[in-house]
């Protein structure tokens, strides 16, 4: 009964605001158009890609392009590389940030404030400024074409430390007092009390780190020469130039590279929004 009334009310609101919906749908179509066209072209036979006028609908969708992307071009290898890279970076960033944030939020030690500023100051150095010496370091360590080379420079993040510290500071101080009485050491307190109470903040950081790592371009381009070590981003960009005879397959690969991140963004939207706006709220 009640549900029916809410439904009726909703229907009425939909009807009265139909111009608004028209605007929403038009805007959504505008935003999705590049993605839509890529999907259409990824389902075309190659000959159809080169004809004018362009098709807005695949007459006979060629799903085999997607199979070809997984067999004829090394998409599975690229995906694996990206997964390992993004996974290691995410795990590393969450760990180092949680440790440092814990020290800044719960421990008392000399130079705490200056050290916190040292952390924050790293946010002012754009990564692009340090690529030359960092590339030389990785070269000297003989880490070109390795997962270490792809991940180690990114295992710490001031943004993550800041984000987690803000959350840790909202936890009641009494927890720490109780833990002290129970004889919990710092690490035990962090692992068994702070972490379970901070799952949302940790998830925010994890989603953010994973998305950023997966989508990286400049650094993987520099430190991978071996096609087997390419990440998915470098892979599709390179294939797009190399495999002109298989553009449709490369486009299918592009969609395959995008879909996991699209799902991540949709499923964890709430966390992502919190991460992206962390800077905005503080100014």
């Amino acid at each position, binding site marked *: 009964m009640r549900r029916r009334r809410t439904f009726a009310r909703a229907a009425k609101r939909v009807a009265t605001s139909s111009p608004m919906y028209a605007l*929403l749908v038009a805007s959504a179509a505008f935003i999705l158009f590049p993605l839509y066209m890529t999907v259409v072209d990824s389902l075309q036979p190659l000959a159809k890609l080169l004809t004018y006028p362009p098709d807005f609908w695949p007459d006979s969708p060629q799903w085999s392009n997607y199979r070809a992307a997984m067999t004829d071009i090394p998409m599975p290898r690229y995906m694996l590389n990206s997964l390992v890279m993004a996974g290691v970076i995410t795990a590393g960033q969450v760990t180092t940030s949680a440790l440092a944030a814990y020290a800044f939020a719960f421990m008392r030690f000399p130079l705490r404030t200056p050290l916190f500023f040292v952390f924050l100051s790293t*946010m002012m150095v754009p990564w692009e400024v340090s*690529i030359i010496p960092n590339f030389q370091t990785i070269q000297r360590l003989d880490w070109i074409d390795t997962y270490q080379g792809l991940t180690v420079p990114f295992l710490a993040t001031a943004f993550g430390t800041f984000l987690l510290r803000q959350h840790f500071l909202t936890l009641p101080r009494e927890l720490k007092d109780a833990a002290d009485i129970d004889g919990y050491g710092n690490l035990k307190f962090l692992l068994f009390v702070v972490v379970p109470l901070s799952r949302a903040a940790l998830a925010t950081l994890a989603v953010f780190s994973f998305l950023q790592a997966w989508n990286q371009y400049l650094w993987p381009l520099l430190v991978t020469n071996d096609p087997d070590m390419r990440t998915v981003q470098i892979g599709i960009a390179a294939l*797009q130039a190399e495999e002109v005879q298989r553009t449709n397959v490369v486009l299918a690969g592009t969609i395959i*590279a995008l879909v996991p991140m699209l799902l991540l963004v949709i499923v964890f939207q709430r966390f992502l929004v919190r991460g992206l706006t962390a800077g*905005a709220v503080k100014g």
Partner: protein
Amino acid sequence: MIGEPSAAPVATPAERRRRRRGARGATELIAAAPFLLPSLVLFGAFVFYPLVRSIYLGFHATDPFGRREIWVGIEQYQDVLTSPDFVHSLLVTGQFTLYTVIPATAIGLYLALLAYQRLPGIIVFRTIFSSTVASSVAVSSVMFLLLLNPGVGVLNYLIDRTGGPTVSWLTDPTWALPAVAMTTVWMNLGFATIVILAGLQNIPEELYEAARADGASPLDEFLHVTLPGISPTLLFVSVVGVIFAFQSFGQIHILTRGGPLDSTNVIVYSIYQEAFLHYNIGLASAQAVVLFVIVLLLTLVQFAAAQRWVFYR
């Protein structure tokens, strides 16, 4: 806000107190070290050392193999700042900034206002409007490469259908930068929309109620409640957009390689070219340091402005 005052001093002579505090400080520092060192070591190796090293390299010239370093002093920085190529690259970056930040902020604001409506199913539109945040620079560029194709691309087709003159988007020096900017705007729209929408949601409902009670029209509401309410957010989005623009690389590398005729040779692409294609490590480092100073100034402007805006709100 950050440090709390240390424990109340014990009533003992100053000398002994200081010594005891020093001893306790050392113990505390040893306890905190395992928590801080992982991050600090990584920052030292991959942020601070490279920064210092870049400045150092900027004072040196390198042979074409990038091996020998010869001290040339401040001269190289002067050369960079006065070289027509670098100045050109700065101008291109500036233009690129204008072409990306203004549209992305404006369209982001429009989309956020649309998505802010309380309507059934609005969550679907919110998701769609923020979805481009998932698209990497490589994915976005490959997608737009297709749309921008001068012969069979959809963009020229639509222009042709509406009777306009078609354009060789990525090979015409006049249009290459706007075309790369278009790709970038699309890619950044998700971020802009998410942040501006969050800003809108932070405006207290009572302000709107008060405005309505005073008989404000929707336009009044927008001008006197919404706009002042989200101006700090808009500022944040634009400054972050400017910083993004100064760091852009992937879309240039995939779409134009800095060409045609250097018309899209933005600063990071120029650094990449000098360092990794021409092996001019010293010159590229000097350029990187200039980039650092620019981004640092922009960040400081953002902090100062944000403080002000938040204060006056």
